[in-house]
């Protein structure tokens, strides 16, 4: 047994880790007026990590660190998306951070730490690394939420998230311990083979552990009834943090769901399929219905997230290659749209005013027509209006449900609720284009923000026209894992 593991596949993680430490040190010795150096370093780290990940891309699965780490196309792809999304998030939030006195080194260190956590989760091939990645991500997030000075609601949001999150990770560990007891190993690959070897019949202990694990993953994703933290945290957190929580961690959560249920426990799919059906239906129903009554845009987007999570679960529960890739496609596209949607909230807010009410979007088409069109693209896409991106994502998931899982009724329920959902997206469009503006303050939109937002909108539009580009990669990545 070689003691020294192969470090090469983990170069990106090592790079981010080192850079985080460097930023921490550099920031300490940088005077206040050069604070932007930390920001630039952070962005540089993300770009560097992106280059490394692309450089390391292989068609094979490389397992290292004694079966605790895996680098496969799925991991590479999800990591790449995470960097890009976080990169955009930082650009959107820069202005907000400066105005709310959050533009400091610790924030960037925590952000990079959570990115590292996500990377670890995405590449995790053992319960231990998965759990540690999850905690690295969560702990950084708790702290980032509470960081804002003055705001009354931020610590409350952080506290709620913390207590419920800790409880969920307790449940996750409990489930993991059961699986460990039944299979005698913590490594996902061995779990899969051990289950197939040891248990001819259905094992109650395994299913039992599975329930706890699903509950924890459902919490992380925000599926009903484990979604309660989502609206409060999205609402209470500083918008710059909300955009972060609402985007990249969803990808990590998807990776976690996939690694656990498909990579590790696919042989138990008869057990988890039923549970996911319940969660998916509840999520789509509760998310879409409660979103209608919201007046705060962050809350509304939070409930819309819950509804979208229902769709992500639909893809997974169809237990098929096309379902998994549809789910992956959905997660990625949702993240891109969500970044745009929350970015718009940041774009509208200015000194002493957070554009958090939906009515703040009134008359946007006259104040900033270009951005109103961008927002319209995001909303149409989230609503699933063809031929926007969100439509393809929904279509693929539904197709998997109908064709692979043969559950027409479930697809019908999904379509029904997403039609209800169109209602509240449409309301924003109505506000933007048909109502008079209440706020006449001139919008200060930085150039970086404007460019990123435009790129973001165009990406959604283009991917809507050519969904095949992204989908092909998703299918490839999933196919590779399944084999």
């Amino acid at each position: 047994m070689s003691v020294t593991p192969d470090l090469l596949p983990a170069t990106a993680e090592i790079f981010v880790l080192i850079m985080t430490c460097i930023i921490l040190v550099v920031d300490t010795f940088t005077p206040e007026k050069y604070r932007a150096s930390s920001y630039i370093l952070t962005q540089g780290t993300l770009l560097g990590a992106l280059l490394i990940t692309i450089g390391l891309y292989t068609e094979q699965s490389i397992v290292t660190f004694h079966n605790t780490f895996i680098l496969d196309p799925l991991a590479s792809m999800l990591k790449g998306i995470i960097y890009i999304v976080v990169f955009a998030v930082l650009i959107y939030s820069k202005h907000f951070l400066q105005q709310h006195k959050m533009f400091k080194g610790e924030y960037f260190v925590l952000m990079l730490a959570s990115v590292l956590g996500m990377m670890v989760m995405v590449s995790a091939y053992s319960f231990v690394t998965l759990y540690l990645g999850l905690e690295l991500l969560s702990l950084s997030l708790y702290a980032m939420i509470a960081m804002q000075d003055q705001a009354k609601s931020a610590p409350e949001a952080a506290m709620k998230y913390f207590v419920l999150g800790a409880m969920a990770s307790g449940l996750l560990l409990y489930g993991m311990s059961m699986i460990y007891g039944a299979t005698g190993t913590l490594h996902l690959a061995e779990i899969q083979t051990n289950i197939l070897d040891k248990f001819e019949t259905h094992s109650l202990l395994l299913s039992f552990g599975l329930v706890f694990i699903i509950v924890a993953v459902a919490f992380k994703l925000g599926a009903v009834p484990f979604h309660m933290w989502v609206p409060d945290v999205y609402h209470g957190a500083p918008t710059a943090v909300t955009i972060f929580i609402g985007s990249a961690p969803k990808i990590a959560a998807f990776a976690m769901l996939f690694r656990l249920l498909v990579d590790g426990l696919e042989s138990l799919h008869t057990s988890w399929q039923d549970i996911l059906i319940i969660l998916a239906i509840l999520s789509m129903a509760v998310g879409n219905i409660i979103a209608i009554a919201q007046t705060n845009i962050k809350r509304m987007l939070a409930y819309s997230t819950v509804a979208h999570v229902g769709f992500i679960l639909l893809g997974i529960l169809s237990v098929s290659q096309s379902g998994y890739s549809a789910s992956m496609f959905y997660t990625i596209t949702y993240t891109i749209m969500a970044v745009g949607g929350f970015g718009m909230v940041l774009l509208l807010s200015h000194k002493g005013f957070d554009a958090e009410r939906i009515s703040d979007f009134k008359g946007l088409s006259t104040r900033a027509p270009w951005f109103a069109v961008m927002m319209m693209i995001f909303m149409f896409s989230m609503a699933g209006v063809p031929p926007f991106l969100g439509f393809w994502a929904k279509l693929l998931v539904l197709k998997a449900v109908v064709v692979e899982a043969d559950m027409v009724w479930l697809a019908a329920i999904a379509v029904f609720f997403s039609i209800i959902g169109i209602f509240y997206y449409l309301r924003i469009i109505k506000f933007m284009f048909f109502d008079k503006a209440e706020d006449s303050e001139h919008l200060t939109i930085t150039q970086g923000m404007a460019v990123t937002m435009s790129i973001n909108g165009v990406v959604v539009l283009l991917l809507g026209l050519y969904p095949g580009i992204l989908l092909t990669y998703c299918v490839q990545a999933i196919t590779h894992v399944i084999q």
Partner: protein
Amino acid sequence: MTEAIIFYLFSTVAVVSALMMISVRNPVRAAFYLVLSFFASAIIWLLLQAEFLAIVLVLVYVGAVMVLFLFVVMMLDLNIVEKESGFTRYFPIGIMLAAITFFSIYYVLGQKESGMDVFQSQPLSTAASHVEGYSNTKELGKLLYSEYVYAFEIAAMLLLVAIVAAISLTYRRRPKTRHQNPDLQVSARHEDRIRIVKIPVEERK
């Protein structure tokens, strides 16, 4: 037999003190009950031959984490209202729910076909027999620094995050406090400290 007595004794202590912890109103007391529960658990861990972890539990948990808890409780200067009930209105339903969860756990563990049957007949003492000179600590250390080095590094990062987060959240610079500046102190010259002023002598009129 001794093992059984130890187990039942200390598990009773652990459970009772856990129950006390969630039902007392005074957080200081709760913290002490938790400490007690941890102690009892540590002994049960010893029973399971996890010596290293048992020690760590006492040292890290009781020695550091719980002290931190107490420290914060004291620092916050809470005024505890003793009269009101500290429980929610639906306390009974809550208890029922917890009971349901527990009984389903209990049921699963008791099932023959649950996958537990492999362990069922194994008595504690023979479960893991070690060769002479076996050291739990050494064994863990070996694994930790070889197979789990990646996880170990992430855990290190986690602690770093905790440090950064805790400091950045709670540290506040009070504008009115007087604090030393060693940099200035060291570089001070005697000219800065004493100024000799020549006062012209005035004659009294």
